[in-house]
């Protein structure tokens, strides 16, 4: 109760400050403001609310250990309500009105593309924590999620291997927007280098929020039954995944016959699904909650305790997932860079962050690349278990350097740096 009251007080305080239009003044001297830009309502609230939570938890943790350069971090949370134009508006508000030093936020590629110009114009920093399609490299953005070669390509290599079932035909299934279309373009080019012809690739898209997967599942079955071992690569995003997996289970398409590997389905998304019929389907990420190591145990315990303390709904069943881990790592990387640069000045932080390392809950020490603004990350392939968690069945030997400009798209050879 105490925290809620003080939160309301803080809210009232900041509202009144904003209303008077007074400069932050003395207040700013002993804290550093950081912005949190995640949708807390609308369709993406499902995924992004947890990222807001983990960001607040990480800031609390840093403050408890004395803050950054002796100053406490002060989070400013705004809600862009899953709307791209609001993302740009709220980002501008965070930077010019609240004077934040850095922003942690965004989930969909569409929202990131909407805020990119704002960060460029104001020369502020964005830490983007979600796997994405690449083909972008902004000076003001740090990408702590996976580039295609840190998720999609290894997943396909696994499916092609004997261990993964030696798939010879592929269904590329996605939601109809920039991330799935670009990823599938890269994957198609990659499959061609592996000797898979166009006749053995089926590509299909559904609108956002599509909920009737009968026809698509029937098509997949038909495609799969035409000989050769088939696998499905799903870039379906958001809550369409629930009806998709439900239909998959009821249509009797088992993972042992036609495995589905997903790039946007993690522990959080599976909370809304009865996972028993899905056992054995795959997901590729750079982190899974089931990974066993001391850092991860501590991370999960911290988040559970935070959720309970802050009255998150269903606090006893909260899970951690890959973008949450990426948020956690991103905030720590920024803190280390600020401490090295001894200032929150954007250009100095950018110069200081390259080469920073952090022992992450994935069990590996992650390094921020010196030039390309991406993390070196390990890749894991997990199989869905009956309890909605994942069993890691395959992983890379160590962290992989990101290739934001995929070598499988023509004309990318020249664009490697910023």
């Amino acid at each position: 109760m105490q925290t809620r009251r003080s939160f309301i007080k803080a809210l009232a305080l900041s509202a009144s400050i904003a209303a008077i239009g007074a400069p932050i003044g003395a207040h700013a001297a002993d804290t550093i403001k950081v912005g949190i830009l995640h949708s807390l309502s609308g369709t993406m609230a499902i995924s992004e609310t947890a990222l807001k939570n983990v960001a607040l938890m990480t800031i609390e943790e840093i403050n408890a250990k004395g803050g950054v350069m002796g100053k406490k971090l002060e989070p400013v949370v705004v809600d862009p309500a899953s709307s791209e134009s609001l993302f740009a508006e709220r980002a501008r508000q965070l930077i010019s009105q609240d004077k934040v030093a850095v922003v942690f936020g965004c989930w969909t590629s569409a929202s990131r593309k909407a805020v990119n110009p704002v960060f460029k114009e104001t020369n502020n920093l964005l830490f983007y924590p979600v796997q994405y399609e690449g083909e972008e490299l902004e000076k003001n953005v740090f990408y702590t999620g996976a580039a295609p070669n840190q998720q999609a390509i290894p997943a396909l290599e696994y499916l092609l291997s004997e261990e993964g079932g030696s798939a010879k035909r592929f269904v590329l299934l996605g939601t109809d927007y920039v991330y799935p279309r670009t990823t599938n373009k890269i994957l198609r080019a990659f499959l061609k280098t592996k000797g898979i012809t166009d006749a053995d690739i089926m590509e299909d898209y559904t609108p956002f929020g599509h909920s009737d997967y009968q026809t698509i599942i029937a098509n997949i079955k038909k495609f799969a039954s035409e000989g050769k071992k088939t696998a499905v690569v799903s870039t379906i995003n958001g809550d369409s995944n629930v009806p998709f997996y439900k239909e998959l289970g009821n249509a009797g398409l088992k993972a042992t016959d036609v495995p589905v590997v997903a790039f946007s389905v993690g522990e959080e998304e599976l909370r809304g699904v009865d996972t028993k019929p899905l056992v054995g389907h795959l997901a590729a990420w750079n982190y899974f909650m089931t990974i066993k190591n001391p850092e991860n145990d501590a991370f999960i315990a911290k988040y559970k305790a935070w959720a309970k303390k802050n009255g998150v709904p269903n606090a006893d069943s909260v899970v951690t997932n890959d973008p949450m881990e990426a948020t956690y790592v991103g905030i720590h990387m920024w803190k280390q860079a600020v401490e090295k640069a001894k200032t929150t000045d954007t250009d100095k932080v950018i110069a200081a962050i390259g080469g920073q390392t952090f022992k992450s809950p994935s069990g590996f020490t992650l390094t921020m690349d010196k030039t390309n603004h991406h993390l070196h990350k390990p890749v894991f392939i997990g199989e869905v278990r009956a309890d909605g968690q994942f069993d890691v069945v395959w992983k890379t030997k160590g962290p992989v350097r990101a290739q934001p400009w995929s070598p499988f798209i023509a004309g990318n050879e020249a664009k490697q740096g910023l």
Partner: protein
Amino acid sequence: MNRLLMRLALLFVSLACLAVPARAALDPALIAGFAGDFGSRVAAIEALGVDGSADARRVLSALEAGNLGVVSERVVITDGDEVMDAASGDKLEMAVTEVDTITLNNRLRRSIATANAAFALFSASPAERLAAATTMRENATETMTPALERALAAEQDEAIRTVLEYALAKINLGSSDTAKRLKAAEALGGSSDPAVKNMLSALLEKTGEGKNAMWVESSAEVRAAAEASIRAIERRISIAQTAGTMFSGLSLGSILLLAALGLAITYGVMGVINMAHGELLMIGAYATFLVQSVFRSHLPAYLDWYVIAAIPVAFFTAALVGVVMERLVLRHLYGRPLESLLATWGLSLILIQAARVTFGPQNLELANPSWMSGGIELAAGVVLPWNRIVIVGFAAFVLVLIWLMMQKTRLGMFVRAVTQNRPMAGCVGVPTARVDTMAFAIGSGVAGLGGLALSQIANVGPAMGQGYIVDAFMVVVLGGVGQLAGAVWAALGLGIFAKFLEGWAGAVIAKILVLVFIIIFIQKRPQGIFAVKGRFADS
């Protein structure tokens, strides 16, 4: 001593039925593969399947349970704190923590399923034997031939024999004996599996270039048999697929109908543009979730029936919310469609936010009861899921209920009277205000039932209703405002139309085409499929 006796007995059993070489326990060479790389593990599983002895089963079930492991090249089974040698079953002096457990993945699971099926071919229960034979038909490789032949020799049941013969035929298509291949090609004509079709068409191809071209299948007789079989299979597949698409359309139609039926009453009959209709669906789905939670915590034994118990709960919860909405807001806005549109839109936002605050922004997990899971297989590749079959039936049930209520009850008569001529109905003593409330409550309750049905196939989250409101209005407008029958035809027609389009053009284009079709249709026929006839048509 006991163990020795048991082994002796086992020895005789295996000698008698399986004719495998005599041995005291499992041949360690058979399972040595588990200590090797991935490929040798798969081979070891298949070898165990063919072996079929009780020891082989023991090792395989340990693997399935995640209890099989390797300690320095030695294959062992763990059981609690104990470690045993996998081949002999002798207890070993070592800690469980030393064992490197073999993790399963899909490829291994598939091999295990085939091996288990090889065991089950000799089960006492015909149902188990049939299931096993079906699995073998899908997955059997040449290594399984001995097990299949043994099973076929012992099998009495005709249906199981047919499946086994298919399985063997698939393997025998590659046999060097022409007579065997001919028999196999003929037998496979009885299948309706596209995979079999592919195997057969592979025979009709030529290898090599120009003059050196050789038929993959050398015998013309076998090729003719294969062609005939392919035609038979293709016919069966195309019938099954058309039936499958029809069913998908029917299923989509029934969902549209359930989403729109409540609206057909509140909008179609009463003329209230209720933008919060989608949220009434959401309330029905959330009520279903609450019933499921109560069953989980208090009546776990009856969990499978929570959906039935949720029917009245979903209906009355949504109806109650409908009554409150009508009493507090809508009754002041009758005859002012624009204001009621705005007011109900506001209500919908309030309801969404209320659900988000109470239950959290996450989607809720609603499990299909076991009797609604899975499906019936019409033909290979065409499965009608039970949850969709049940929902089609449920939609019909709700429709009949509404029809009876509107046509056969006093309340239904009042509703019809008030909607046709409010002042006149009032003059003859119909309590119009109360009838409005009742009609709105029923429309809302039906929306609640729609939400219950949706919870079994779609997402349950605070904003779920938003996805259906447009579809629901589409159905009501297309069907003709004021008509329940119109809504039925429009929903089923749209469902089947959309599914055939989707199969042909993909989901994104199909959605656009459906909207274009409706715009054109409404342009040409603004009154919808069924027009209200008579004096009140224009009022």
